[in-house]
């Protein structure tokens, strides 16, 4: 299936390895006196992926599965428990980092090992767009001020005029034109879609190489959504930028993304080409998600939706042992009697995310090759780099 928007992808720019973000749960005095162990919300619990230049990489999954936390971790906005993230900044930034004494390898720096002062130059390169176009802009700032602030922080443009020129260019890229008409407005004088475009302009104005877009269209009306998706799609060739696109909407993911990673309870359970994953899901959870989505079709009203999943998402404090999906897995339930090996594996040993078809990764014992990996005690990562 061809896609009008497919572009040539460049070299790898980000490699995330076994990222874990755990939030400690506050203990009250009696818990401490009774020496109850510290509990954690395992928001992100061992996530690995890589992103190439100009790629739009999607994180999908139900609310609470750790999508936002993964994005925030890359900006060091949440405390990282363990794991590494190797990022390749642009040459100028690498030179600045070099001068600060930051070690790099083949142009990659490891984000979580940096001091705050060393991370600062990278803030310009990694930007985030938030879900809420209403809450994310300061109501007392005009658009011009919102954007100029970013330029001042990163010392871009030496004169007021130069900065205005850069601002105008950014607004043109997000199609807030004629620029004169918008530049002096306050957020309350803009529609939701226009606000979201200002948020995008703010993210791109420092010329980032990676944008983390957290549900950037979910709060917008359908009629405006398409316009924002269009703006984002155009940016990657205009700016050579890569995206981590976070969404719970698989139809949007299919439209805009190159690859998608499906997350469940803090882990990626399936990863692959966006169109292929949706047309032919390999993990029982992905299958269940897709089966639940209402596609606009009047014939649907005559049938009940067959839900290929049991129960509800468990609490991220007590992650089920073995395959974390097993308490809800219909495949496991239906096959454990006839396939005894499943019963020995699913509730006991965590299935590693491995390649079962070219460029299709999944973590599920339905696939014999994954059983083999576990049975032979091989290392759990089976990606060819």
């Amino acid at each position, binding site marked *: 299936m061809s896609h009008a928007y497919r572009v040539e992808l460049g070299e790898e720019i980000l490699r995330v390895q076994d990222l874990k973000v755990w939030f400690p749960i506050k203990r009250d005095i009696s818990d401490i006196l009774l020496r109850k162990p510290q509990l954690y919300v395992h928001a992100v619990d061992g996530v690995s992926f890589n992103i190439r230049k100009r790629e739009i990489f999607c994180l999908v999954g139900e609310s609470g599965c750790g999508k936002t936390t993964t994005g925030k971790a890359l900006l060091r906005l949440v405390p990282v428990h363990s794991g590494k993230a190797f990022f390749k900044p642009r040459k100028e930034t690498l030179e600045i980092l070099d001068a600060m004494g930051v070690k790099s390898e083949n142009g990659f720096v490891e984000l979580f090992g940096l001091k705050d002062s060393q991370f600062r130059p990278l803030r310009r390169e990694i930007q985030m767009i938030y879900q809420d176009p209403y809450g994310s802009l300061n109501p007392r700032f005009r658009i011009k001020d919102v954007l100029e602030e970013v330029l001042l922080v990163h010392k871009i443009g030496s004169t007021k005029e130069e900065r205005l020129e850069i601002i105008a260019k950014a607004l043109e890229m997000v199609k807030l034109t004629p620029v004169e008409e918008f530049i002096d407005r306050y957020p309350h004088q803009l529609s939701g879609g226009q606000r979201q475009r200002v948020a995008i302009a703010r993210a791109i104005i420092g010329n980032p190489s990676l944008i983390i877009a957290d549900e950037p269209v979910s709060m917008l009306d*359908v009629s405006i959504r398409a316009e924002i998706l269009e703006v984002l799609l155009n940016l990657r060739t205009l700016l050579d930028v890569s995206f981590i696109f976070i969404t719970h909407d698989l139809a949007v993911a299919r439209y805009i993304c190159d690859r998608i990673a499906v997350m469940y309870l803090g882990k990626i359970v399936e990863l692959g080409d966006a169109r292929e994953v949706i047309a032919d899901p390999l993990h029982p959870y992905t299958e269940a998600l897709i089966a639940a989505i*209402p596609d606009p079709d009047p014939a649907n*009203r005559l049938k009940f939706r067959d839900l290929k999943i049991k129960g509800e998402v468990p609490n991220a404090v007590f992650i089920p042992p073995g395959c974390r999906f097993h308490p809800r897995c219909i495949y496991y339930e239906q096959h454990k009697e006839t396939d005894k090996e499943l019963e020995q594996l699913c509730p006991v040993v965590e299935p590693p995310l491995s390649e079962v078809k070219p460029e299709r990764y999944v973590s599920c014992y339905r696939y014999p090759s994954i059983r083999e990996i576990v049975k032979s005690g091989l290392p759990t990562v089976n990606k060819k780099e």
Partner: protein
Amino acid sequence: MALLEVENLRTYFYTLRGVVKAVDGVSFELEKGETLGIVGESGCGKSTLAWSLLRLVPPPGRIVGGQIRIDGKDIVGMSESEVRREIRWKRISMIFQGAMNALNPVYTVGDQIIEPLLLHTNMTKQEALERARELIEAVGLAPSILERYPHELSGGQKQRVVIAMALALKPDIVIADEPTTALDVVVQAQILNLMKKLHQEEKMSIILITHDLGVVTELSEKIAVMYAGKIVEFGRAEDIFENPLHPYTKALIRAVPRLKGDIHKLEYIPGTPPDLRSPPPGCRFAPRCPRRFEPCDKEEPPIIEYSKGHYVACWLYTKR
């Protein structure tokens, strides 16, 4: 005579900064046991329409014109006490937008379900509890939920409780305003399955309000497309999706990405919906309409029956 007949309904909000014409001349009918979906963008008047049908428009809003007839009897002119005694919750009830987050945190689920039963019927507390148990099972929950507090429930469980509350007095019509918007897809599918079951088994008439074109087709036999306070197109779901007439409906359908089939470029509607304090004089969609022509800015298009049961308000289909 249809179960519900709405005729030229107008509901305005009298704010300090002007009159917001949130519902401005809406007419439709709902038969017994029928499901009607109302779709439209944020702010087009969907919730205001729903509040009007329950005679619960919040101030500074009020119904300023038109009729709402249930079994032929107009409720717009009825006294509040009569509405409370005869109509609200008994004939027509509602699942409010965001209601699952508005459950009272200090009362158990059971207490909250029996409250309207004690208030509106002659049931004893024992009978009310018995009915609450029935209701909670009808929405697929275990009776033990009745003793729990809202914060102990998941989003999907809370939404089921809210549905049970709307069903408490066995209404003929239930309005569900964005009943699944805050829920994940799996839970959304469970809730929609539940509503389908209630519709089929209890022959309940449902008005489903949503901005989601996928959700609306899950349940609706008929669909009304609203834009800026008006119904611009109305028909069977098949009419609306297979043969949309109004340029707004067409654009809306082409603006949503699909899960199957070819991926073609999405279309979007330039601009934004009008300010309902000063809507454009002619067709309200005219400033954004790709098909706009000479009469559109001058005069409002009337709603006409284009083919049997398929209505549209657009000059393209009206001989002048």
